[in-house]
């Protein structure tokens, strides 16, 4: 009998496959390998690679002996770098189940967490936790005065800089909608509210973020690892002056 204790995931695994694995391994803990768990840098991939992908590789290697398997998002809902990471980790002996999930959003998409009165960080974390264990909770709607567009930042603390009346857009909102590869939903924002467009440095979403920030007169930011004082100051100034 296996003594391994963890199921790893990244991106947005196909829910059907994730559920099957959950039923098969009910006692194993599921960990989102996208997160910065502060495990050592394996230096397996170049420095100028998205920090989220570095997290995936570093976390997987560090936890290798405890990981039963990894459900890896390798389709449009994630990115090429995720697909390559799956290949590398498979070659290094990890048990990888690749999934692709490009189901488009339905016309009537509901995203109660993204538009709730929770603090922004809590909104984003709840949306991501919702992939693993669906949240069965009612959320109160709060009208937005600000927007945050993008993926959950590696340095999640930057979300503390935003007021609670900030709505979530971009890929994170797509995740809540169950449509992580829906590009039309990903580029949707409320053009009437000042929005920060965030991407991880070296991620292809930088392209979208910069374009959308210009289109909607928002603030574009890309951050590699930990946000510098100037990045934090820019967010603060954008919110205060906007």
């Amino acid at each position, binding site marked *: 009998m296996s003594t391994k204790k963890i199921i790893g995931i990244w991106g947005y695994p196909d829910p059907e496959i994730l559920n099957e694995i959950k039923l098969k391994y009910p006692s194993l803990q599921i960990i989102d390998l996208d997160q910065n768990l502060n495990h050592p840098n394996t230096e397996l991939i170049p420095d100028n690679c998205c920090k989220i992908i570095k997290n995936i590789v570093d976390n997987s290697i560090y936890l290798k002996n405890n990981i039963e398997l990894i459900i890896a998002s390798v389709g449009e809902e994630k990115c090429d770098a995720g697909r390559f990471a799956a290949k590398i980790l498979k070659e290094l002996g990890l048990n990888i189940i690749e999934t692709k999930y490009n189901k488009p959003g339905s016309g009537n998409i509901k995203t109660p967490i993204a538009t709730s009165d929770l603090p922004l960080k809590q909104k984003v974390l709840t949306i991501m936790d919702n992939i693993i264990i669906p949240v069965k909770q009612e959320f109160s709607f709060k009208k937005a005065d600000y927007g945050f567009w993008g993926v959950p930042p590696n340095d999640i603390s930057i979300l503390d800089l935003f007021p609670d009346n900030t709505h979530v857009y971009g890929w994170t909102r797509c995740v809540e909608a169950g449509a992580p590869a829906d590009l039309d939903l990903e580029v949707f924002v409320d053009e009437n509210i000042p929005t920060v467009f965030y991407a991880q440095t070296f991620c292809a979403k930088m392209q979208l973020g910069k374009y959308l920030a210009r289109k909607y*007169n928002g*603030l574009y930011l890309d951050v590699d690892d930990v946000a*510098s*004082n*100037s990045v*934090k*100051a*820019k967010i*603060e*100034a*954008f919110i*205060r*002056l*906007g």
Partner: protein
Amino acid sequence: MTKVIIDAGTSWSKILEISSKENFTSILLSANKNLHQYKIQEPQTFYDKDDKKYFGNLFLIPSTLAATLPVEFDNATGHMVKKRVKPNGLYENEVISLAYGAKKLIKSLKDATIVDIGSRDLKWVQFINGKYKDLDWNSSCGSVTGATVDMLCKFYNVDPNNISVQAEKIPVVCGVFAMEKIMDDISKNTPADIAIAKYLHGIAYNTWKFAKKPQKMYLSGGFCNNNCFIETLKLYCDVIPLGRYVLLGGLF
């Protein structure tokens, strides 16, 4: 009551102490008599954002010295002093201080791009119709701003007041490469002042480009005192120097 306000830069700190009384006792000079040499003689009256008049002393002191002063500040900007603000004091980040300072200084501020060039960073705020529109702050490459020019002038014994504008520019996408180009130029017998002026041209061009190519730029920071830089920047846009105390003015 005397208030002590600081804009703590990387190389230089701008400190203002103000009081509603004309003959107030200076907290700073009481703390360190040597600060006399760093006191700016003019002006001696200052106005807050509500146009209330104060009497004051303005200092421009090396930040290494500012770090040793046994003083807590009432109002401050610059992350080096974030922990030295009085419990009931006010800390603002540099971009916000720049925006407020510019609003206070430019009475008819409608459409304006205000750029502050520090020792190692570059930040700007844009207003359209008197309302905030855009901003940016580049502090990731510290080799392309004031401190490097200071060091080069000292190293090559060049008086920054005696440099003239050069049409040619040394590209400063990367400060390290730029430094290599300057030294390369000088090794090929280009006078140091010419090489530094070309470098200044590179900085001026980058500044203008980074600020999204405005037609007119309000300039803040130590480069307001560098005529060659201002004249070079004028190759690209109109320039209105605001001096190096804009952020300080945004704090009260």
